[in-house]
């Protein structure tokens, strides 16, 4: 019997750490330490290369919270959440429920095709859509003109009203396939019996969707929310390749402000302060979503 207890996996706790070590080292060196360094830098006035590094305490934060450019950028980020997160999740739910309940021919093809935007580099996505939106030779306006909707053939990315929704909708295009695949996977765990019982009780498709599918996908929706909201808050590449924050400041986002402060205006401290605030916002939102997810699993238990 003594032999058996010796082989018990719980015994040698140290061993596990050795397997973790390589990944942990990389994480420490390239993620954790830079985060600490970023937070530290945010208390300094520093150009990023000279010896002249001055401690200014919360100075950068005070300036940040009274900076109308930061308010505007943050507001745009929140609007991006609608396009990056809310709309893709709704579309994803709709498509997934369409595809999962009744098998259609070519299902695997559609699944892959709709997921494709997710694996393309955002820079490429930006360049392609900038061309799609081009008012002179872009396909979107050509199509609008062909079907007689000339009034809608505007210069999308340069329009003060439409630039933000236009860039946002690119985000929708990128994210909804990911949401759909996630929900499709989740739906496989929902037992058919629920649906059968519900339809015997007279629940229509919509009611089944609201009362069976959505609660059953609670964890998947939480995962989708966290990843897409983070993507919306840290968006940079898409804005950089399409509008550079213009026209005016209508598509300016916090990620772009950080880039500008750090790399064109030599204000590492200020850039670090924006980055720190943004990280905190993301952290708080993620914790909230996690709580929602956990509450759900307690309820269903």
């Amino acid at each position, binding site marked *: 019997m003594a032999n058996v207890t010796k082989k018990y996996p719980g015994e040698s706790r140290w061993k596990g750490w050795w397997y973790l070590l390589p990944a942990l080292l990389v994480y420490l060196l*390239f*993620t954790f*330490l*830079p*985060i600490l*360094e*970023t937070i530290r830098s945010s208390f300094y006035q520093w*150009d*990023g*290369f*000279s*010896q*002249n590094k001055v401690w200014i305490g919360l100075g950068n934060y005070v300036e940040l919270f009274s900076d109308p450019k930061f308010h505007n950028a943050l507001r745009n980020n929140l609007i991006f959440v609608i396009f990056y997160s809310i709309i893709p999740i709704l579309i994803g739910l709709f498509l997934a429920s369409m595809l999962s309940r009744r098998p259609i021919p070519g299902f695997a093809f559609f699944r892959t095709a709709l997921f494709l935007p997710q694996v393309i580099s955002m820079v490429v996505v930006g360049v392609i859509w*900038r061309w799609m*939106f*081009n*008012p*002179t*030779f872009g396909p979107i*306006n050509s199509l609008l003109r062909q079907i007689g909707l000339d009034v809608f053939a*505007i*210069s*999308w*990315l*340069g*329009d*003060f009203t439409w630039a933000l929704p236009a860039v946002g909708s690119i985000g929708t295009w990128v994210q909804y396939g990911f949401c759909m695949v996630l929900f499709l996977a989740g739906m496989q765990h929902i037992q058919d019996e629920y649906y059968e019982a519900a339809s015997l009780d007279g629940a229509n498709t919509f009611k089944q969707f609201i009362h069976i599918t959505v609660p059953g996908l609670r964890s998947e929706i939480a995962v989708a929310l966290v990843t897409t909201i983070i993507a919306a808050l*840290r968006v*940079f590449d898409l804005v950089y390749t399409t*509008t*550079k*924050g*213009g*026209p*005016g*400041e209508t598509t300016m986002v*916090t*990620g772009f402000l*950080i*880039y*500008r402060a*750090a*790399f*064109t*205006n*030599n204000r590492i401290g200020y*850039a*670090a302060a*924006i*980055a720190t605030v*943004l*990280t905190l916002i*993301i952290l708080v939102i993620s914790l909230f979503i996690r709580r929602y997810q956990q509450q759900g699993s307690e309820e269903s238990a």
Partner: protein
Amino acid sequence: MKKRTIFLSISLALMILLSACAKPASPTDQAPVAGTEEEVLLVWDQFYRDEESKVIETLNAEFEAAHPGVRIQREVKVLDDLRTTVKLALTKADGPDVAQVNQGRNDMGALVEAGLLLPLNSYLDQYNWGTVFSTSVASRNSFTEDGKTFGTGNLYGVSPTAEVVGVFYNKDTFKKNGWDVPTTFEDFEALLAEIKAAGITPISFGSLDGWNAIHEFSAIQHLLVSLDYINNLTYGVNNVSFDTPENRQAAQILLDWANAGYFSDGFPGIGYDDSNNLFKAGNGAMTITGSWLAPELMVDTDQEFGFFLLPPYEGQTGLAIGGVGIPFAIRKTSEKQELAAEYLNWMISPRAAELWAEAGMLPAMALPEDSKLETKNLFGDTLNAWNTINQANAVGHYIDWATPTFYDTLVAELQKLLGGISTPANFTEAVEADYAAYLQSQSE
């Protein structure tokens, strides 16, 4: 956010790795003759496009041939990459001996302030650079020793190439319609109306990328203001204001052009390169941009193009936006300063001028007397324009150098102006707010 920091630390780590790798010169090249050790000059430049790169390669090879025992280790980067990495690299003991450093306060100014660049005044005398470039050109690469005042003080760089902003026009379209190159601004505006009436886009232009809108505005502005004003504004001296009748008038003219439909249809949604490609393909009679576009317009097209300066008002003279390209500078802590200075001198030699001209780029230096270069083409037009404004002392400035945030402010405010969100008066007031705040911060 996090991504940025990671990027920063990775590039830092890479830089450390790279400089560690760079240290030992390859053993095969080393010490061909006993007792003479090979000297390696580390140079960072941003001439990455094919034809530019060839010019540098040729000059480097000729420099090595003329200096036995010297090897040039070249690192080429695109401008954005160079700008973000060169500052840290210049703080290091084994950083580049020679590097191209962008002009203006955020780059050269910040580096001078940090004490990282070598003042070149003694070499200016030693090599007689005063005969190679004018004082107006030298001031663009000059700062006071504290890095605060732009345009005076020490010389910190020498520029091999030159740029002038003017009007490219489609010669075929002009010929077909019987249009002539206008010689006054009044004629130019009349021509715009005529071209528009003929159903052709007068000026191919797109403001999606923002920066070229500064050139459209400022090219007009340069016809209305004096050289003193544009110098004061750019160098931040003598307390001038941006909110002036001349600047407002320039903004009004630009807005009138937009409202009259003189720019490409849907121009707010068109990028700089796209607008140039449309122009190159024969859409649009003219485009207002810098001479750097000339090499591109001379190849892969069946159209023929010419270049002229935006003409001044009847009976007046005008300035033109122009300047010299990104200069070569020397790291203050380099141990090979003499050799580095010799390299700088090499980069602005008559031979360099000839090579740049052959590549279709304007050299900042005069061409050799006996040059047999073809100048009856688009390149010749740009060279002519550059010589004209140089001789007339009418070389203006890129006004976005004026404050560290001027570029961003100008781009945003010009887009608002052209988008009908603000008026010319709003525009000059908003830009002046940025300018005044900067002057204020400088005097504190």
